[in-house]
């Protein structure tokens, strides 16, 4: 505590005064009572979907019907004249969060509709692979209050898939490739570990069947969870069938004299769960490194990953799916990453330092040639309102994304982005509460969408073949 700032010292003193003096403890009595006390049992999946939610207004259906009508009109304009207000291909829908509600918007027309409203805080909507449903989180995802729900794009048929109290913290999820289930990365019950357990369960997307825990049959070494707290689930499925998912190898699960760590590949064929350890994937020598951030390419042929701690610094790498052909692309560490739909390019965030201040830019990297293209959004390097915060000494003089805070306490770096289904554009959200930018990756031209969002948009990649 010697390295505290004056404010931190005052805060520590205030907290000590608040908590009062330390008390004497009758440890023998406490220990005896602990041994006698019966165990508690926490929540199980409740049958929450038998009755429709009350308080939902039918205007949503009317609104979405209007949106669809307008979308059809916009689509006619788009496909008929070749001119659209916003330069996004396909004219399909995206879903996003704004003000704690779930919205569906059409980038080709600018029309948007709130499909899930109310006092609850909803976030993280993701279209199902077949485009017929949207899954989203309700409640603070860092707490056990978070639940996962599924709704149709018109706001109807809302169902609870994962109830609150199922996971202590940090639930993240993705659709299975067949759209029948959600794979959820969650904490396990009882919530007694000091860290996130990182187990995986399959949840019936209709909210009827009980969840099925996938990870306990898998072997796990001491000292680490199956999947990390921040482990992104969505890109871990190997497209197109989702037969293999990726995880980081901890020190304990891949003992190695050189201290090497690596990538685990788990076969989650949903019936036989085994850990595959291809030799080439076990570690990345000669570095004693810990990879983080693993992303299958959309065609399932490559894996992109970040590595820290190498002699050359942090870096972005790609390799073939069998672990061969490892190639370093950039000295970028951390930050979001997104594959282009055709698996030829990666969009990544890079910290930049300019006279106007530090900030982030989005870089498109060709995974074959290594060629880079910095997107020329006019907003990229104008984030000068941030207030310097505690900055790690090792980064002095360097651009540090995420270590600055604006007046609202938000970091400077991007909230994220996603490729348009045709790979011609990236829709980017600079920060919560702002209008997403549509950036043409060829020309760098940026256009603002006419709505404010709090989350990265999720695209509907496939138009449903059957009525929604």
């Amino acid at each position, binding site marked *: *505590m010697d390295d505290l700032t004056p*404010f*931190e010292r*005052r*805060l*520590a*003193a*205030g*907290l*000590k*005064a*608040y*908590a*009062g003096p*330390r*008390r004497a*403890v009758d*440890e*023998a009595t*406490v*220990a*005896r*009572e*602990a*041994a006698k*006390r*019966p*165990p*508690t049992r*926490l929540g199980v999946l409740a049958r929450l979907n038998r009755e429709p939610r009350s308080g939902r207004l039918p205007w949503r259906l009317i609104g979405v019907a209007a949106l669809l009508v307008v979308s059809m009109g916009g689509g006619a304009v788009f496909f008929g004249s070749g001119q659209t207000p916003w330069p996004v291909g396909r004219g399909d829908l995206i879903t996003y969060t704004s003000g704690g509600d779930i919205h569906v918007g059409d980038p080709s027309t600018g029309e948007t509709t709130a499909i899930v409203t109310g006092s609850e805080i909803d976030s993280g909507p993701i279209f199902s692979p077949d485009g017929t449903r949207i899954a989203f989180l309700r409640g*603070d995802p*860092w*707490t*056990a*209050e978070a639940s996962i729900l599924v709704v149709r794009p018109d706001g109807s048929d809302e169902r609870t898939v994962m109830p609150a109290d199922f996971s*202590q*913290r*940090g639930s993240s999820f993705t659709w299975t490739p067949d759209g029948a289930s959600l794979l959820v990365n969650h*904490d396990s019950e*009882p*919530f*007694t*570990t*000091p*860290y*996130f357990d990182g187990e995986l369960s399959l949840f019936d997307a209709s909210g009827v069947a009980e969840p099925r825990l996938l990870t306990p049959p898998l072997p796990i070494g*001491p*000292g680490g969870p199956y999947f990390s*707290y*921040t482990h992104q689930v969505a890109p871990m499925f190997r497209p197109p069938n989702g037969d293999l998912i990726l995880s980081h190898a901890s020190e304990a699960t891949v003992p190695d004299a050189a201290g090497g760590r690596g990538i685990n590949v788990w076969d989650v064929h949903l019936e036989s769960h085994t850990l595959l350890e291809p030799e080439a994937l076990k570690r990345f020598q000669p570095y004693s490194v810990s990879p983080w951030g693993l992303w299958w390419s959309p065609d399932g042929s490559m894996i992109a990953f970040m590595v820290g701690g190498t002699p050359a610094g942090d870096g972005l790498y790609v390799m073939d799916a069998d672990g061969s052909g490892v190639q370093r692309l950039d000295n970028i560490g951390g930050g979001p990453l997104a594959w282009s739909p055709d698996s030829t390019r990666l969009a990544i965030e890079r910290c930049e330092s300019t006279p106007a201040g530090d900030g982030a830019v989005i870089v498109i990297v060709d995974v074959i040639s290594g060629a880079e293209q910095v997107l020329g959004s006019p907003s990229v390097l104008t984030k000068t309102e941030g*207030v310097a*915060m*505690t900055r*790690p000494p090792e980064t002095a003089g360097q651009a540090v994304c*995420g*270590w600055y*805070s604006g007046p609202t*306490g938000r*970091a400077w770096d991007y909230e994220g982005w996603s490729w348009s289904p045709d790979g011609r554009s990236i829709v980017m959200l600079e920060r919560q509460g702002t209008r997403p930018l549509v950036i043409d990756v060829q020309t760098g031209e940026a256009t603002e969408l006419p709505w404010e969002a709090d989350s990265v948009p999720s695209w509907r990649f496939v138009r449903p073949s059957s009525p929604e």
Partner: protein
Amino acid sequence: MAVLTSGVSEEQSGVIAQAAAGDTAAFSWIVSHYHEDMRRVCLVVAGDEQIAEEAVAAAWSIAWRKLASLRDPVRLRPWLVSVAVNEARQLLRARRRRAVVEIAVTQAGRHPSGGEPELEIDSIDLRNALARLAPHDRALLAMRYLAGFDATELASATGRSPSGTRARLGRLLHRLEKELGDG
């Protein structure tokens, strides 16, 4: 106070092993060393003495049954505190379903530590600022500045990376500094 850190001794590891095997004397030793850290952190999280006491009692019960699952003795303190904090949050949530829990604000003792007033944070302001934070953020602050967790222990207790913990703590500090009139 003896604290298990990365330099955990063989003797301390032995105590943990004995307690995990059902030795109440060894378990009592652990209670004597960590009970107050757990209670005081829970008090900041819940803002309620009774909830804090109940949470710690429940946490000791869990610890008694689950101590054998502790994979690394170095993690004992963050493990115990995080279990207690989790219980406090569960109790707090259950209590809120029945009635509103207010974090008590006392008019007395605006500078209860007896130090120089200008060097202290006003206790009422601090309580109000804490009340506006989420329980897991209150837990993070209490673990850092009350229990004195280092970055490794914080990361272990919160399940985040050390850098992620630093970032969250930095944002919390920035917010508090502004709210408490120091920013």
